[in-house]
């Protein structure tokens, strides 16, 4: 599609780059974000990339809307020359896939005659891209999940999904950075901190990053600092 620039508010514009969700969008999205950051400099207050769009919040005391639109148009005319400075980073998340911490693992295994290993293999064989961060700090919406694992959200969201839980919703997957409410189908748990205030930049990954999952044993999970407390968020 031809990119569209829309007014989103007094001090904000929305850039619509794509019509559909696709992992191949993310390189261009990241490239546009990086270039806009550099071009707008101090006039940029916030930038929210998400799937197919980039929302820009700018300082109206430093730059007018027409000037901002001009910068965006100029950036969009530039060809995307792969990723320049901000390479998409790859993260490997160890996951303990187990029914005790993943109450929907059984549900998904039913599709493969109860073969848990098939669920695990299909979930960890993909290299996912982070389409967006949102919902809560460090919560990354990732895709695209194997079509055999596609599962709608729970009809009634849980009040509490434990930190580290790995979930599937539709053809997306995510890891819970904290204890949060949620309706994703939970199949395992990672010991890795996804939001850490002692880490530079706070979140493990950024929009556009590549994430892989790697099955580990209960012992490895514990050795890595994981909390094996059985899932108790079942009460809706």
């Amino acid at each position, binding site marked *: 599609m031809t990119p569209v620039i829309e007014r989103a508010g007094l001090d904000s514009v929305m850039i619509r780059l794509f019509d559909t969700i696709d992992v191949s969008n993310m390189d261009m999205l990241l490239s546009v974000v990086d270039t806009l950051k550099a071009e707008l400099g101090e006039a940029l207050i*916030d930038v*929210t990339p998400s799937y197919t769009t980039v*929302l820009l919040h700018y300082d109206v005391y430093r730059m007018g809307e027409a000037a901002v639109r001009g910068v965006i148009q100029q950036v969009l005319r530039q060809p995307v020359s792969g990723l320049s400075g901000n390479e998409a980073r790859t993260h490997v998340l160890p996951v303990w896939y187990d029914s005790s911490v993943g109450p929907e693992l059984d549900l998904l295994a039913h599709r493969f005659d109860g073969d848990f290993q098939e669920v695990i293999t299909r979930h960890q064989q993909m290299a996912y891209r982070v389409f967006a961060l*949102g*919902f809560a*700090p460090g*919560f990354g919406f990732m895709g695209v999940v194997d079509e055999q694992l596609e599962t709608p959200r729970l009809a009634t969201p849980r009040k509490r999904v434990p930190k580290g839980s790995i979930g599937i919703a539709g053809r997306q997957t995510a890891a819970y950075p904290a204890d*949060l409410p949620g309706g994703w189908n939970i199949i395992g748990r990672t010991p890795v901190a996804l939001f850490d*205030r002692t880490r530079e930049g706070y979140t493990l990954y950024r929009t556009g990053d590549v994430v892989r999952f790697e099955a580990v044993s209960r012992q490895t999970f514990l050795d890595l600092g994981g909390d094996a407390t059985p899932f108790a968020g079942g009460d809706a």
Partner: protein
Amino acid sequence: MSPSAKAHCHIEQAGGGCRLQDAGRFGVRHLGLGQGGAFDSVSMRQANQLLGNVPDAVVMEITLGQVCLSFSHHTTIALAGADLKTRLDDQPVAPGRTIELKAGQRLFFQAPRDGARTYLAVPDGFDVTAELGSITAIAREPLGGLHQDGRPLVKGDSVPFKASGRPARYMEMNEPWRCTDSVMTLDVLPGMQAGTLRGESLYRAYQQRWRVDERADSMGVRLTGEPIHSLEPQMISEGIVAGAIQVPPDGQPIILANDRQTIGGYPKIGALTPLALARLGQCLPGRCVRLKPVSRAGALAAWRDALAGIASAIHAS
């Protein structure tokens, strides 16, 4: 007292809501971190201006009432925003002015008479550690607030500020921020998916009186009325601005406020202007509001005038 002495504001009762606020957290939306900040940013600035503070010095945001405070030292504070039938011991006090308090006196915010949120400023602001540029605390986020853990203030908390010993000057505002009109007009910048409203829905959006629902907080305010429907009921999730007017499938709009999530997937018919968003922060459930489309140039001028007018609206009393 020495210039560096610490004074404290004690929370005796936290009632309907008592939070520390500033202008909010910026430059972090890409991490999934929210904005937060004083819902009625104009009243926050007024409270600070009354004491000669910087506009976004840390204030206390008191919502709805049943909040009781006392202070460790003789000090001068300022109140701006809602009239919450406030008493200093037995004496009624009105917002829009500085108030001298003796140590141990109780300031009790009873219940709304006019508006929903009042802002209490202390000399130089409350002295609380900021993280990522702000002290604001948003539900779902583990940072901000008195203890930097994201919690709102609770009974028993004591919030420090510098007992500067700055000589008290009695200041008041010419016209306290009032919302006495029977129907509050909220200016809207149309945009985004406005084109996806059917004719009748478009008419209803801007012509009917909407009612502020009970489901109203710093994340969002739901309006109820004749439903409006977008031709595009669900979209790919995208960034959301403060004041965005979302239309979920039930047709009852939700105006997203400062503590909103960073992304969402409902179509939006536009966004409130910053001034209208501040006014929305004073709307109690049951209040009637009208959405009025305005030009961007007019909205920008109104916002600049409002901010510039804060200083000139204050005089010594």
